């Protein structure tokens, strides 16, 4: 694999999109799912979601298909490459947390100050 920009952090939007798309979903369900997962903390705007889905599809991390011939709604699902990238991101995030907790002494410290 070439030296790439593959090492950077995902945006929160991308993180939750890839997490949600481990099951196939169309746009509306995806948006609702992300809001539910985060108790509405992350609620993606329609344009932001559209842009992110297009970029992820172009990069081969997700793919789209038409759900049924009737309503022609587009559904999206994560690809193998997408799963690999997502797992890498999980490793990065775990390391981040581990480092912070090692220095600050775990979660009890969050209540302090």
């Amino acid at each position, binding site marked *: 694999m070439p030296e790439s920009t593959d090492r950077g*952090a995902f*945006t*929160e*939007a991308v993180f939750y999109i890839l997490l949600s798309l481990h099951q196939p979903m*169309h*746009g*509306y369900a995806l*948006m609702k799912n992300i809001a539910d997962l985060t108790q509405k903390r992350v*609620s*993606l*705007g*329609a*344009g*932001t*979601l*559209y*842009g992110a889905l*297009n970029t992820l599809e172009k990069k081969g991390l997700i793919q789209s298909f038409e759900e049924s011939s009737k309503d022609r*709604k*587009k559904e999206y699902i994560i690809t193998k490459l997408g799963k690999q990238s997502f797992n890498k991101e999980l490793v990065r995030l775990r390391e981040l947390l581990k480092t912070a907790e090692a220095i600050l002494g775990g979660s009890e410290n969050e209540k302090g100050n």
Partner: protein
Amino acid sequence: MKKEIKKAFLDFDKEEQWLNEQGQNGLMLLNYYNGTYEFEDVNPTKYLYKIEIPKKQNRSDYYEFLEELGITVVANYAGRVYLRKNENDGAFDLYTDLDNQIEQYKRRNIVFNSVASSQLGAGILLFINMILYTSRRDAPFWILLVFGSALIISSITFFILGEPIRKKIADLKSEKKIRE
């Protein structure tokens, strides 16, 4: 009951705000063209509105996506698109990330800048004509002077009106340095 309102806005944010006030009063926007807003009174249903300058590519695909999310594309006018959502279907956000927000404000800024610079160019052209081709203080001299000055004043006005947009872009960019 249908209702037509004629109104002109220079500021997108103010136009959006005004539309949302109408939406809170149960007015559903049906169409917009050349300063005329066509509403239908559907009180007590309330509507939320957004105005966007969409990208040129894949517009129909984007509009289809919006429709799937319960957002109606009401009108497409002079590069702007008027979007409507029923308030019962939840909050209406288009861009929740900084990159996209910056891009939207940049596109609005381009509108102001292109108006300002074309007026400035035309104004200067009239002044050049005035200097080169009028020697006496006759009618052509005064016509060129008045219209030239008007264009230049108008271009300066547009430039000043664009200032809040540039400020907004700068704020968002500095925010982006520490947050996604």
